[in-house]
């Protein structure tokens, strides 16, 4: 590989421009770190810088949309067709969502900690660092890059989970997080090493073809299953899918509420996008290798079962929680389960429905981010003002702070997935995506089973969400009224209004957005026949080559294993 690259090659500025959002994030980190040296320590300033950085990243991402054509870009010249990083509209959309959410969480932080906080700089450095890692997670199909990105996202997360240093629970949470994370990533790396051993590459596109060939031939099934499961484990850890979810409730409960809010959406979102991208790559791999995607039935069922168990587990376990953050942790496990179901949709590229799972995921993520932000905002304000995270602190909130209670109801009902809120529409697109496989694959029964699981879980989840509503409106411990800060109230209400808009008016817009951004996501159909000949010019919008032209497609076998 290395031999093919001339040492005199440097990426052009234009090409570096594709990397601008990430660079902006790095820049923000640097500014936050440097600023105190010049201006003195101030948490609020760091927050402002982070806010600005997020906005700049956002703008840069938006600007890139025009430059990225259909099919996306993978890597820089001359390895542009099989690079370690991918830039397509999906990653841009994800970054936009991430940055928006980042600004929300920053605002939340400002609400809660502006005066007394002494470690604002470190906090934002770590948070933006994890954001960078998440951005990278969604833009790779290289296993090494994937591992690095997951670690990049995780390591700062470990630290900010324990950021409240004098809080025992916080310390405990971070220890659990780091240990669990370490184990998961280690196992994932082991799986990666096995895959590397079998196919002698870290490029998922090629691995997928090899796996398809082997599965079709009935070879290496044990190794493949094991290694794929190990890789999946690493991702499932980030998603917090059962059985890799144990860290989630503990960390959510122990960490500060801003951190919880951040983790509940961002890290899961990144991992889910990654998962779907991988699944997509495997589909394409199978097709390129000339096999039916049914080769991956087992994988689909495995993912589906995992997803179904996740949402059921999350919903049931949430029943008896009295800590709001812990309750929301289980809720997030359940929602991740719903979204993970989309990974079971194995579709043939080129068909009209191919963009659907990812589009549905993006819609769900958008809505989920909004509703979680709303819920966490209210929960944060309540917990700050009452010094309690217990559900009892919500008692009589309808009277004590109606402007918090009403948006809270909207968000919670939306989390249940009932009309007329965005949660329903998100769930609806999800169900449509699941159902869309009806006539296409043998996985239709799986899809319908998953649909039924989703709706039944909706029912189960009703209870614990409504428990909060019930506490807010139907009981009253005569606690004193709250004086919610205006910004927080505004934010919560904004979320509620957005959810209502998503549920009634702006139903098409997120869908169109998601379709537009995911419809032509990067398709790793390109197979390198020779290491040094790029098949595509960078930025070429054409789909590279049809399958039959990919002559001399060599799938490295498990070499040397005598």
């Amino acid at each position, binding site marked *: 590989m290395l031999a093919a690259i001339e040492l005199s090659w440097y990426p052009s500025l234009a090409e570096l421009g594709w990397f601008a959002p990430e660079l902006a994030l790095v820049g923000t980190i640097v500014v936050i770190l440097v600023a105190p040296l010049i201006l003195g320590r101030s948490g609020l300033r760091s927050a402002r810088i982070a806010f600005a950085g997020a906005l700049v990243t956002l703008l840069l991402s938006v600007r890139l949309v025009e430059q990225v054509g259909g099919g996306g870009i993978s890597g820089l010249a001359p390895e542009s067709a099989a690079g370690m990083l991918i830039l397509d509209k999906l990653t841009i959309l994800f970054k936009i969502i991430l940055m928006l959410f980042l600004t929300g969480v920053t605002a939340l932080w400002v609400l809660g900690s502006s005066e007394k906080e002494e470690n604002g700089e470190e906090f934002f450095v770590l948070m933006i660092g994890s954001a960078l890692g998440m951005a990278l997670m969604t833009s790779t199909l290289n296993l090494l890059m994937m591992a690095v990105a997951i670690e990049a996202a995780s390591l700062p997360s470990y630290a900010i989970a324990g950021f409240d240093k004098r809080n025992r629970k916080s310390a405990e949470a971070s220890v659990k997080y780091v*240990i*669990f994370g370490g184990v998961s990533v280690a*196992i994932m790396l082991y799986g990666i090493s096995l895959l590397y051993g079998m196919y002698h590459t870290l490029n998922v596109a090629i691995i997928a073809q090899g796996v398809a060939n082997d599965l079709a031939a009935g070879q290496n*099934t044990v190794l493949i299953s094991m290694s794929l499961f190990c890789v999946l484990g690493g991702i499932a850890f980030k998603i917090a899918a059962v059985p890799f979810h144990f860290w989630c409730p503990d960390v959510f409960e122990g960490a500060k509420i801003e951190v919880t809010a951040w983790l509940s959406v961002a890290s899961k979102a990144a991992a889910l996008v990654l998962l779907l991208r991988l699944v997509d790559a495997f589909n394409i791999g199978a097709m390129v290798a000339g096999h039916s995607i049914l080769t991956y*039935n087992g994988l689909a069922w495995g993912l589906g079962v*995992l997803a179904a168990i996740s949402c059921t587990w999350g919903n049931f376990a949430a029943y008896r929680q009295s800590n709001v953050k812990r309750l929301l942790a289980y809720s997030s496990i359940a929602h991740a389960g719903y979204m993970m179901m989309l990974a079971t949709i194995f579709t043939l590229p080129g068909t009209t429905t191919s963009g659907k799972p990812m589009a549905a995921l993006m819609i769900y993520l958008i809505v989920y981010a909004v509703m979680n932000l709303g819920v966490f905002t209210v929960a944060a304000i309540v917990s700050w003002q009452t010094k309690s995270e217990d559900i*009892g602190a919500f008692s009589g909130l309808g009277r004590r702070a109606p402007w918090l209670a009403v948006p809270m109801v909207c968000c919670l009902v939306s989390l249940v997935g009932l009309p007329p809120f965005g949660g329903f529409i998100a769930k609806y697109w999800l169900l449509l995506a699941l159902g869309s496989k*009806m*006539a296409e694959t043998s996985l239709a*029964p799986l899809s319908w089973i998953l649909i039924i699981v989703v709706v039944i879980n909706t029912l189960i989840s009703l209870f614990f969400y409504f428990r909060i509503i019930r506490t807010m409106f139907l009981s009253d411990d005569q606690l004193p009224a709250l004086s919610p800060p205006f910004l927080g109230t505004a934010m919560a209400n904004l979320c509620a209004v957005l959810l209502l808009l998503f549920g009634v008016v702006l139903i098409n817009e997120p869908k169109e957005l998601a379709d537009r951004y995911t419809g032509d996501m990067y398709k790793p159909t390109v197979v390198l026949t020779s290491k040094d000949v790029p098949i595509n010019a960078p930025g070429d919008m054409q789909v590279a080559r049809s399958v039959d032209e990919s002559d001399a497609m060599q799938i490295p076998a498990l070499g040397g294993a005598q």
Partner: protein
Amino acid sequence: MSNYETYLLAGVAVPFVSFFILMLFGPRIGKPLSGWLAVAAMATCCVLGTLTLVGWLGEVDSGTAAELTAAAGESQFHWADIGSVPIKVGVNLDSLTVIMFFMVTFIATWIFVFSIGYMAGHSDEVDGKSKYHRFFCYLSLFGFSMLGLVISSNLLFLFIFWELVGLCSYLLIGFYFDKKFASNAAMKAFITNRVGDFGFIFGLMMVYFFLGTLDLDGAAAAFADQYASGTGLFDPSFTINVLGWHVSGPMMATLMGIGLFCGAMGKSAQFPLQVWLPDAMAGPTPVSALIHAATMVAAGVYLVARVYRLLTPDAQLFIAGVGCITLTAMALIAIVQTDIKKCLAYSTLSQLGYMIFGLGMGAWIAALFHLMTHAFFKAMMFLGSGQVIEGCHHEQDMRKMGGLIRKMPVTGVTFLIGVLAIAGFGIPSMNLGLGGYFSKDEILAVAWDRAGIGGEGHHSDQDGHHAAASGATAFDLVSDSHEAHNGDDRVAGHALATDDADHAGVLKLMFWCALITAYVTPFYMMRCWWLTFMGKPRDQQVHDHAHESPMMYVPLVVLAIFTVVSSYALFRPLIADAAPALTDAVLVTAYDGHADDANHAKGALINLHGAHDWLFWGVGWSWAIMFLVAIVIYRNGVGLGSKLKSAFSPIATLLEKKYYFDEIYDFMFVRGCRLLASISAFWDTYVVDGIIASLTSKATERFSAFAGRGVDANIVDGVFNGMAVTAFDLSNLFRSPHTGRIRNYVLFTAGAAAVAILLLLFFDPVPDAQAILTSAGG
């Protein structure tokens, strides 16, 4: 629309207006005036009824009545559609309607008048509020409903009014609803009637489906047509599969008739639904007179008469059987009654039994004739009893009365006229008699013929029969009544003819029962009268207070006069006029080939006692014999009677307990139903809710409790707490791995991962992917 229809419709509307006014403004109109308003309304109706009757008699004479009937059938109101079958309603303008209308309005008017006097004595002030206007309000509603029932040309409307009179009956029985027994009796009456209506509805259904209409004439025509053409119910291939039991067409037709008759059983209190009527005496006495003696209870008989053309021989036999049981059993109970109103109530039951029996036996004219005569004399007797009760300060026990004739001469005499009428007083050789002498004994005569006791030959022997001129007066026809009665018999007795031989035993038995009861009737009636009015006063205090008021005895006198008149004039000719149209079912031809008989014997008042040698003695003088017996026994008060009673104590107890019907029903139905209800409620609370809602309820309960707000502990499924694995337990199950110890987490994860890998390796999730692919694709 002819004048008659207008009269009749106006006659229906007037009481409704009265009802409406009294309902809205009753309290303001005040005590005497609201009563007079109702009387005025009813009197208006009576005038209309009289106008109609008089006019109609002329139409019958001139032979234009049939055209008017037909014309009335044309102008109907399209009320609704059931499915796609239109339901139209109009006025059923024929002789029967006219005569019923007159009878109801006439009696009602006088009873209303009586009521003013009666209610004046009943202050009815409860909580400072008078119920006076409400009484007349209900009475007006009753008038409306009863008249509506009479004129309806449609079975469904007949049913609707039928229920409305039931409602009025309910409200009026329960008029003293602050008394427990009154409200109980009201409820009993309504529910018992509902049981009958249950059958009625089925009858309606079958009429609707098999005959395609609910119009009375239309249904009868369709029935005849189906029989004639062998279609529909009489299609040999007709069968209905009821749970594997194939019901044939004629059988279905029989069931249809019996279903309709069920309604009559309820309303006319026939066995086994007779239980409500004696209790209904809890209502004010005018109500007993009007509703529970003269009019409403006769509606059952009217219904059977109306649907007569739909009855098959088997259905008729059934009807006759029910009537026979009722008339016998109830008459026996009447012997032991000591309450004057109860005694009259059982006599009413028995007489209704006669009517039903008559209809079943084929004595259509006789039964309706009996309905008319009975209405007058029984209303009069009830009013008389009301007078007695009122005069004796609400004393109803005959054992405490006696000798009242001196204090209440008018009441006593009129009551005696009633007693004579019901007993069948008459001189057989002279054609002199009262009410029952003509009507009841005619029923017996028909039964006698049908049972074949008088020898064979009546049915097939047409030659001697001749048509009695329609509209002929009673007195003209007395002479040739021997033959006439045979014709008359033929008119109504058609349907059972071929079956008579098969059922000879039953028919004979029924005849003998009816005959014996004819002897019982004079006995208990005379007992009743004698105990009340003759002998020595047994309770001086009661006797001292006894008095009568003109307001109340004027109606008695009027009704007494009409008791006499009705026995001879007006009614029977009109009934006979209606008979051909309402009875000449095709079955007449079908079963014994005597369709022509239908044209015979119009309006004949027959001397049955002369026609049947044996009946001359057997029935004609029964009243005299039994009067004597009763007077002998009760001449000195109850002494001898109670001795006799103790001598036959088991029988007497059985009779006093009314054959234990109330107890049996109470046990079987009331308690049974409540038990079933309790079981259902228990089941619902603990099992259905327990299972269906155990997930929800327990979880809800727990999380209610969890939040520190205890919901009462025995929420839904206290008993079945352990039954289902609840969501909450599931929650614990799912929570249990979250021990808080990171090593456990890792172990659990690794274990789960291992299991998952093993499953992936050794378990193919989709064994037959291709098959499902094809199947899912359809």
